[in-house]
């Protein structure tokens, strides 16, 4: 297995895509116990990471200003 990036550096999309891949792999292919457990642990970390992102994310809002993207400030 190639070196994987740390789970907490992944975006939700990346983490979710990897989770899908792991599930597809361990559900369709016979793998050694060691490989399965490594995939399982990685998968559970991905699940946790995704759930954390959903729970803790702050909506990031910007707005167009001319040709620029600037921070959005809600009107008072």
């Amino acid at each position, binding site marked *: 297995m190639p070196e994987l990036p740390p789970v907490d550096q992944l975006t939700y999309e990346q983490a979710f895509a990897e989770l899908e891949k792991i599930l597809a792999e*361990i559900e369709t292919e016979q793998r050694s116990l060691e490989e*399965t457990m490594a995939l399982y642990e990685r998968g559970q970390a991905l*699940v946790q990471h995704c*759930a954390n992102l*959903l729970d803790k994310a702050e909506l990031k*809002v910007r707005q*167009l200003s001319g040709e620029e993207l600037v921070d*959005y400030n*809600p009107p008072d």
Partner: protein
Amino acid sequence: MDAFPFLQPVPLTVTELTRYLRQLIEGDAAMQDVWVAGEVSNLSRPGSGHVYFTLKDSNAALRCVIWRSTAQRLRLSLQDGQAIEAHGYVGVYEAGGQYQLYTDAVRLAGEGLLFQEFLRLKARLEAEGLFDPARKRPIPARPRRIGIVTSPTGAALQDMLNTLRRRYPIVEVVVAPTPVQGEEAPGGIVAALADINRLAHPDVILLARGGGSIEDLWAFNDEAVARAIAASPAPVITGVGHETDFTIADFASDLRAPTPTAAAELATPNRADLLADLDQRSRRMERVARDVISRERWSLEERRGRLERASPISRVRSERQRLDEISFRLGAAMMHSLQLQRARIEGVRTRLAALSPLAILERGYALVSHKADGRLVTRVGQVSPGDALDVRVSDGSFAVHADGEASS
């Protein structure tokens, strides 16, 4: 006095007459679905919630009623002196002896023309294929970036942001501010759609505006806006006005939402669903891991059994067992052979016993032997007169001397 009392027609009661008129009016299809233009006067809103007014023009007046449930849904707030168009059916209020317009919709005078214009534009764009379902692009299930084209100060924007925050806070939002009503709105919306696609590359765009009058929403019935929506590289979800408002923009968009909030909902998965989905995936992984562990455990168990069977201790044990077995078989064989021998000996002894000379003596025969040397006498010639002999019979022997001549 009455010359022909029997010819006097029977009078109708007031009720009968009124009912007759009511049937006449209410049976006329043209009176059941009618728009009437006039000016509002004598507007009254009693505590019942129903609304009463008179529509008049320079020559006539028409009583109008709006029931409470309908009045609550009206977008237009009626005022005395307002020029409006009212829609409904004409019926008769029997108790008051009045015919009146039971009103279910009102609009400002002139909106009828706008509506005609709306229908013509819609038909033209439809014929051109701009609203073709095949043109509609799918809305991505989990967008990374959402573009919002709306007024920066409207409540609609806050509604959408709150909805996105609640449902899918990991999405990135880019707002392209534009006026959404008035002269500048159509051009602003067209430019905002182009800019947001070019500068932010959103996965989906929400084009939205809160509720308002038909004039307020008119920018969304603009041809250039409809074409800009159809030309947008990113799919567009419209959420304009209220549920009952349909604009040209709604027809041109990839997905029509009834309100701005609903547009934000249609653009995003729900966090609760996502968490449930993650939970389900986690359990699927757990199941696979458990299966693999039990598969490995079984396989380990099986190998342990094989290993045990091959171990030295087990060898010794099984050798000992073999030895025990052999020694048992040996013992058994010896016993058998012993018994066999014993039986043979017994047989021989019986036969021997039958051949014993003693047994013959028993039958009256005697053995004669020389006293001197024990030689048995089996021939006449072996004995001379005067020889000392032993005669042996079954229970002992006695001595004799030979005295006569031999005879044969």
